[in-house]
């Protein structure tokens, strides 16, 4: 996987919370932009068990890998713009962790590309989550889920791209 996307790409890896609505508004509608899909991932409290998540990341590689994933999405679907924002550090329950926005002429490409980016991001972008318990105690590193591997591998076959 290599190469640059031929459409506007915004990649941000940062500690501060972001505002999904403001990020959507930032995407100015080009003449042929008929569909914008956004996904926001939030920090769950797991029934009151957690206060926050702590996310470690690999600076430099995260940005490079996200650029590769977006370029791959651009080879599979006719995209007009992509934004990916991913936070690191301490993220309190209820706060946003990740935002993926895809824009295309039609909804199918925008929906599929957003799902693809999230599925591959979870298994390929170098982030690691650890739980912070409700009483503030650092807990275990979260283990990778087989479900996430399965979700990512459904895009492996080139014919998955429509």
């Amino acid at each position, binding site marked *: 996987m290599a190469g640059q996307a031929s459409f506007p790409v915004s990649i941000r890896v940062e500690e501060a919370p972001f505002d999904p609505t403001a990020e959507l508004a930032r995407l100015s509608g080009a003449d042929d932009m008929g569909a914008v899909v956004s996904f926001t*991932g939030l920090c769950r409290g797991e029934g009151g068990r957690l206060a926050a998540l702590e996310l470690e*990341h690999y600076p430099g590689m995260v940005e490079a890998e996200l650029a590769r994933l977006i370029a791959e999405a651009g080879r599979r679907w006719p995209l007009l713009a992509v934004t990916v924002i*991913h936070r690191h550090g301490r993220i309190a329950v209820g706060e946003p*962790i990740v935002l993926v926005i895809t824009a295309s002429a039609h909804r199918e490409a925008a929906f599929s590309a957003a799902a693809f980016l999230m599925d591959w991001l979870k*298994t390929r972008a170098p982030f*690691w989550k*650890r739980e912070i318990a409700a009483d503030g105690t650092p807990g275990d590193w*979260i283990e*990778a889920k087989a479900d996430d591997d399965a979700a990512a591998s459904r895009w492996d076959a080139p014919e998955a791209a429509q």
Partner: protein
Amino acid sequence: MKVRYFAWLRERVGRAEEEIALPPHIETVGDLVGWLKSRGPEFEGAFENAAVVRAALDHTHASLDTRLGQAQEVAFFPPMTGG
């Protein structure tokens, strides 16, 4: 060559990064893992289950078979859990 460790691998080896002089017979990522494991019990423990260790060369995912070549930086980490 710079070697970096992340998440529980970093905790188990007790350091985030280090500079190593690569012995001449080390050609692949797998060779490097084998050599690292010989450096002490903390490395033996961190790398005991190769199935849950991922690697990257110069910010690109790599496998145990990948040749180190002219890479400046190698990183080891658990399966990723972002998103």
